[in-house]
């Protein structure tokens, strides 16, 4: 058990290094000259060249990567070219909205998707099953910005139930905070629900076909007990995996959703930084989010040991 944990944790270090190398080299290869961006339009070639030297941009690729990595280990992601603030500080300011949105989306999705998947598997072939398949196909197919506009039109503009856009921090009261997040989180969870419900269904169908389920039924165990204690518990691994892998999916949705709903989170920060060619911020945000993804999947892997005793040995 301990060995499994240690091995899995040790594996993440080279993975994060590789991710960092990927991000750094891809963004470097993609071109663009930070010095020209800082110098502004109409700057002379000499001035840009002087800036390049001052910023260390004339150093070889590996030296620059090493310097970035060294800062990274010390918790320093560089300084924004635009605001001149440390990237870590900029990211820190944007964490609350993004985390709140992601967490609420996760809660919505799991609360809807897991019961839907379980019922679909239990009543395979019924209308609930067809509905689940339908919902997941449509959820995958309709982009989040399309559903978002429809939701804004209906719930905010026509019915006036919820605010059109914006964000209120939790410190300013729970309802103002929640009311701004309900629509974006609900729209964002549509595709997530499709993913998780589909995996839950297929995992449950497989488990419910096992001999021990028939034995339990023959012993007279009640249906809810069979579904939840014997069924869902054993279908846990693929479901948790889908939730973890879906995080990457969620991040993409967050970027778009924050743009549509005007939420000042990490997604907005990235889109704004990209518009300004603010390289250190772009690199920093992508790295932090990728690192989070790696960590979430580490937690997912470790949770297998909790869900499945066979893995502990």
């Amino acid at each position, binding site marked *: 058990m301990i060995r499994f944990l240690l091995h899995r944790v040790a594996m993440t270090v080279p993975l994060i290094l590789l991710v960092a190398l990927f*991000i750094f080299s891809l963004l470097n290869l993609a071109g663009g000259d930070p010095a020209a961006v800082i110098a502004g339009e109409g700057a002379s070639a000499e001035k840009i060249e002087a800036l390049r030297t001052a910023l260390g941009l004339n150093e070889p690729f590996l030296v620059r990567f090493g310097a970035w990595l060294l800062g990274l280990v010390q918790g320093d992601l560089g300084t924004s070219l635009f605001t001149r603030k440390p990237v870590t500080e900029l990211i820190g300011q944007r964490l609350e909205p993004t985390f709140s949105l992601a967490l609420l989306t996760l809660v919505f999705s799991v609360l809807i998707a897991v019961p839907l998947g379980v019922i679909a598997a239990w009543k395979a072939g019924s209308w609930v099953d067809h509905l689940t398949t339908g919902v997941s196909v449509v959820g*995958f*197919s*309709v*982009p989040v*910005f*399309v559903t978002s506009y429809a939701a804004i*039109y209906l719930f905010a503009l026509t019915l006036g139930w919820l605010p059109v856009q914006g964000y209120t921090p939790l410190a300013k009261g729970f309802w103002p905070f929640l009311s701004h997040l309900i629509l974006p989180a609900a729209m964002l969870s549509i595709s997530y629900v499709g993913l998780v419900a589909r995996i839950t269904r297929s995992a449950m169908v497989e488990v419910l076909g096992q001999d021990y389920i028939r034995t339990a039924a023959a012993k007279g165990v009640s249906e809810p007990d069979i579904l939840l204690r014997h069924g869902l518990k054993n279908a846990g691994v693929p479901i948790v995996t889908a939730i973890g892998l879906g995080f990457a999916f969620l*991040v993409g949705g967050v970027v778009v959703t924050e743009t549509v709903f005007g939420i000042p989170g990490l997604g907005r920060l990235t889109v704004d930084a990209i518009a300004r060619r603010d390289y250190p911020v772009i690199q920093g945000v992508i790295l932090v989010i990728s690192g989070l993804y790696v960590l979430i999947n580490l937690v997912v892997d470790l949770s297998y040991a909790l869900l499945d005793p066979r893995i502990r040995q």
Partner: protein
Amino acid sequence: MPSLIRASASDGAAAPARWAGAIARHPGLAIGTLVLVVVLAAALFAPFLGTVDPNRLNPMLRLKPPSASAWFGTDRLGRDIYSRVLFGARVSLIVGVSVAVLVTALGLTVGLLAGFLKRADSVLMRLMDALMSIPAVLLAIALMSLTKASVGNVIFVVALGELPAMARLVRSVVLSLRERPYVDAAITSGTRLPLLLVRHILPNTVSILLVQGTFVFASAMILEAVLSFVGAGTPPDVPSWGAMIADARGTFQIAPYTVLFPALALSLTVLSVNMVGNGLQAVIDRQARR
């Protein structure tokens, strides 16, 4: 695709009856294919379907609701939405198909190498793990904003995000095929690796690649729209559904049709591709059970 449907149909029935049976069994596949054919026709024959120049500005006719002269209305610059939706289908389909083909070819190569060469396996798969850890949307937006806006670049960055999942899938299929007795037999009888791959492994991956390729097609169209939506997609003179929706951000409260038509076109097209994918999956599952 027709051969798959035919193969799953019952024995000896007349061709029309067989087709009718196949459609009844897989209505999603039939409807999806039909919608896709319509979209494809609209894209191909856009200039002949009563359209005008999709980029023609007409300041006199800004934000006109749908009418006999402008079927889907006009946008905030007076451009004809119907024409833009039809021409927008081109870039969506081109990106979708190109990414699907590119990702299938690359994923197949990486997956085959990883599945058969132990030494390449760990290196390739760690690279794929790392690539998979970087959220595709973020990476694509960042890369597009730093490079020139062109359809080719969009295809490349979208494919980069879709590749790792495909490579993993091919590898897992190859690993399970390797355990089959006929592969053992082929190796024992001295079949060389290239021939083994082409004759015994490749044909057995086709159905899975077809299904996964369809899903990549659908997801690439969404990613293209997302890129255009955040302003990091195709050049402004190429009409794109995502860019149209982004463009209508400021006008959709007073003129909902500016968002409605491109949004419907995008959603229905992606939905039809996903329905085709699901249908193919069902056909293959059915065959596998026999």
